[in-house]
């Protein structure tokens, strides 16, 4: 591969394509793009471009491909695994200005959007028609449909409605060599026959190309939506009532648990939702469907809460009140900034029946590594989000954080779960991938990727470990050293006083 440094006129050529104000190459300002929500790994891009159409993305990619310069797609930078971080002096193709809703079909129930359309904005746009876009990551007011597609994002309501992949019908994709392809179809199910190629693209974390027009399914709003909040004096009681709800055959739209430390951080923030601060855990349940069914299910769930010694149960059907109950959950990650300077959001999955055991062991791991650990998670599908608050300037604390994270993911594996539920591999879990897959499996995945991205120019260094590294059993000390190997080492400013 030619070194990117050998194409000094690249910035000029890019500016010719897009105009100077949509190509950023001020070296210092580029630091703003050096990480996403996973702030442990940082890498400054070589430049950032802001295309506005499929044709512009294609022109940019053709230019970069011919110059052999790697590139990385980026949405709103809310990813939590380093997906849009520019490894290897790559150029970031930022989709923030591709934010047009191209078409809404209220009869065939789909919308065609550009990748930079914010998830919640799509729902806002179709609300007058009694419709919504179902996948709802906690960052939905910021994150983009393009990013959701790349990461196959989940969210609280995915327990009932499925992940992003279940809601994407078709996409126009610019492949890493600049070729434009159309995958899927807007009529009927995505793949009535043949191989579901768009399914492969979903969740490829931006390594298969850049989707520039995405057709997503719109869902009709349910007749009634009811949100319930139950508080418990122990985490295990909250987990047991989740098990009971599911084994009773109920399918709530969402089942979310927040632990005490999270409750307190949220209650101190502008996202305060009135969660009882003395509770060890709160369980947020949302029911939707025809009025009679919701009423019946709510009564049954209330009985389950009582049987599990709930301290308090709140119910809301009024949209304003429901929004209040959800507010704390949606603002939970950001509120962690109140605990320490940096946040490592983990994303492990365990079988639902092992939730209690997993949480107990996670607490034990946290204590052993002396890290500040809190839990907020999608209880319905066993998708845990242990959050470790730490000071990223303290290398030793960062190392302990990473080590604890590694052990937690190992625990999820041991319990029969997975190392990611919805945040993706990115750069964060590169070393954990081989815990989950055999070298043969990884080889197959690498070959699939090579079909889309043969030169590895599109988002290099993500998802799959380097080929020869597959077989190695990763050991956390090496990994910590690698993670700490950031581009520049931050220093504290000197005080004159």
């Amino acid at each position: 591969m030619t070194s990117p440094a050998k194409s000094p006129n690249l910035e000029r050529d890019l500016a010719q394509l897009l105009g100077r104000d949509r190509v950023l190459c001020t070296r210092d300002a580029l630091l703003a793009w050096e990480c996403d929500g996973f702030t442990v790994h940082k890498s400054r891009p070589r430049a950032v471009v802001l295309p506005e159409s499929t044709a512009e993305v294609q022109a940019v990619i053709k230019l970069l491909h011919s110059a052999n310069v790697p590139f990385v797609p980026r949405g709103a930078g809310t990813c939590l695994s380093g997906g849009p971080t520019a490894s290897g002096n790559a150029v970031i193709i930022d989709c923030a200005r591709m934010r047009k809703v191209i078409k809404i079909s209220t009869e065939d129930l789909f919308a065609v959007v550009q990748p930079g359309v914010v998830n919640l904005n799509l729902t806002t746009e179709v609300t007058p028609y009694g419709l919504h876009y179902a996948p709802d990551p906690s960052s939905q007011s910021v994150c983009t449909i393009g990013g959701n597609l790349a990461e196959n994002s989940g969210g609280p309501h995915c327990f009932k409605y499925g992940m992003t992949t279940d809601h994407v019908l078709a996409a126009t994709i610019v492949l890493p060599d600049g070729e434009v392809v159309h995958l899927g179809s807007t009529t009927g199910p995505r793949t009535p026959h043949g191989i579901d190629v768009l399914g492969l693209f979903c969740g490829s974390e931006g390594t298969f190309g850049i989707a520039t027009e995405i057709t997503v399914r719109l869902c009709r709003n349910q007749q009634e939506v009811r949100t319930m909040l139950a508080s418990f004096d122990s985490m295990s009681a909250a987990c047991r009532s989740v098990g009971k709800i599911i084994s009773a055959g109920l399918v709530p739209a969402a089942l979310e648990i927040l632990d005490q430390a999270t409750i307190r951080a949220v209650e101190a923030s502008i996202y305060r939702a009135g969660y009882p601060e003395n509770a060890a855990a709160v369980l947020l349940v949302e029911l939707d469907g025809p009025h009679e069914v919701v009423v019946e299910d709510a009564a049954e769930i209330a009985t389950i809460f009582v049987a599990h010694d709930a301290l308090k149960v709140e119910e809301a059907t009024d949209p304003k009140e429901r929004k209040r109950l959800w507010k704390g959950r949606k603002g939970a990650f950001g509120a962690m900034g109140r605990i320490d300077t940096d946040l490592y959001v983990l994303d492990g999955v365990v079988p639902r029946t092992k939730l209690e055991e997993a949480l107990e062991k996670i607490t034990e791991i946290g204590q052993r590594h002396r890290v500040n650990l809190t839990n907020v998670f999608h209880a319905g599908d066993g998708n845990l989000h242990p959050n470790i608050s730490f000071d990223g300037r303290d290398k030793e604390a960062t190392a302990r954080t990473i080590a604890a994270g590694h052990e937690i993911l190992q625990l999820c594996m041991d319990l029969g779960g997975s190392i990611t539920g919805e945040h993706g591999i990115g750069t964060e879990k590169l070393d954990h991938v081989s815990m989950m897959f055999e070298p043969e499996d990884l080889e197959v995945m690498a070959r699939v990727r090579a079909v889309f991205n043969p030169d590895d120019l599109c988002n290099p260094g993500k998802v799959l470990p380097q080929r020869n590294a597959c077989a190695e059993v990763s050991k956390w000390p090496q990994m910590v050293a690698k993670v700490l190997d950031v581009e520049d080492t931050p220093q504290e400013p000197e005080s004159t006083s």
Partner: protein
Amino acid sequence: MVLSSESLVESYTRTLDCVHCGLCLPHCPTHQVLGVEADSPRGRIYLMRALAEGRIEEPESIRPFLDRCLDCRACETACPSGVRYGEILEATRAELERAQPKRGIAAWLTRTLLWHVVANQRRLRLMFWLLRTSEVLGLRWLATKLRLMPASMAQIAPPVPPASERRPLRTGVHKPPPGTKLRDVRVALFTGCVMEPMFGRVNRATLTVLLANGFEVHIPESQRCCGALLVHAGQPDRARTLANENVRAFADDDIVLNNSAGCGCAMKEYDHLLGTADGKAFAAKCQDISEFLATEGLTATPAEQPIRVAYDDPCHLCHGQGVTRQPRELLQQVPGIDLVSPTKSDDCCGSAGIYNMLQPKLAAEIGRTKAAHLHECAPDMIVTGNPGCMMQIDSHMRRSGHNVPVRHPIELLLPPQ
């Protein structure tokens, strides 16, 4: 360049509150227009943190991104982690300005205007007299025609009102008219630098409403400009001089009222600006006129207004001071009023002090969006509590062809003549 001031170290600590979640992005007017990470609160905080950590090689190169910030504080309202963005931005701007004052004619003109004219009431009055005279003589029209004055500038600045409307309020103590039910409260009124010559009628309405509601009003002669524009421009030292004079001017008063959201916000932050006990005490005395009247209650019923009124939140009132309920509560008491809330009423209008003159293109784009949202609810009148916002909204409503009067909420609280 070594960045080492104490305030920068403090603001550096504040940047650490940000965990990069990005929930601020949709609330940032400049990010909404530009889509550029470095033009978002998260990106700017990141750059300011990097600057303090010594990772920025050429501080001048990140300055345009910081300059493009409106300092509207919408990100503070949206932040789950409670990052005090305004403080970080103001400290960083001050440090950059200290280390390397901006060059060029525009920067020189801004500095001169802010300190030698705006902060000096006598010269400010003279300037407005000159402006008014030149308008009367048709020089403004000529200047626009000859393109000596950019069209955008001409459109932002509404015509200067005649001398009778620019007349300052009499200083000293004003007593409620005879026959008014007296309240046992004396308040002081901060009259502001631009409010007086541009919107003298708002100051007179404020005084009339206070007196009609039975309050005794003190207007100290020695009060000065609040210094907000200087703080935003990275000149906190000059702002401190003004702040200290205001602290002294209002030393005998317990309640200091203002009718200008930008000034009110700046004065409530004297605590931080001055870092003294006096500053803290002064900040605690400051209230927006709507806060005060909503708490005390109106005793004089406002005149009937059978019209549809859209209330728009000034950023430095809703985000800066957290005051959103009070102006609406007061306006609801106007007989006959149909009060409506426009879409995104808490989004910035693009005025932001003198931002619309320094960043005309971006300010115009933000102003257009605001005008569109306001027009949607088909109001007969728009009310907002800040002189800059009044001018910007008025300008953009006119530019988009909608002739809707823009008023200050206090003007609707005037009792019948």
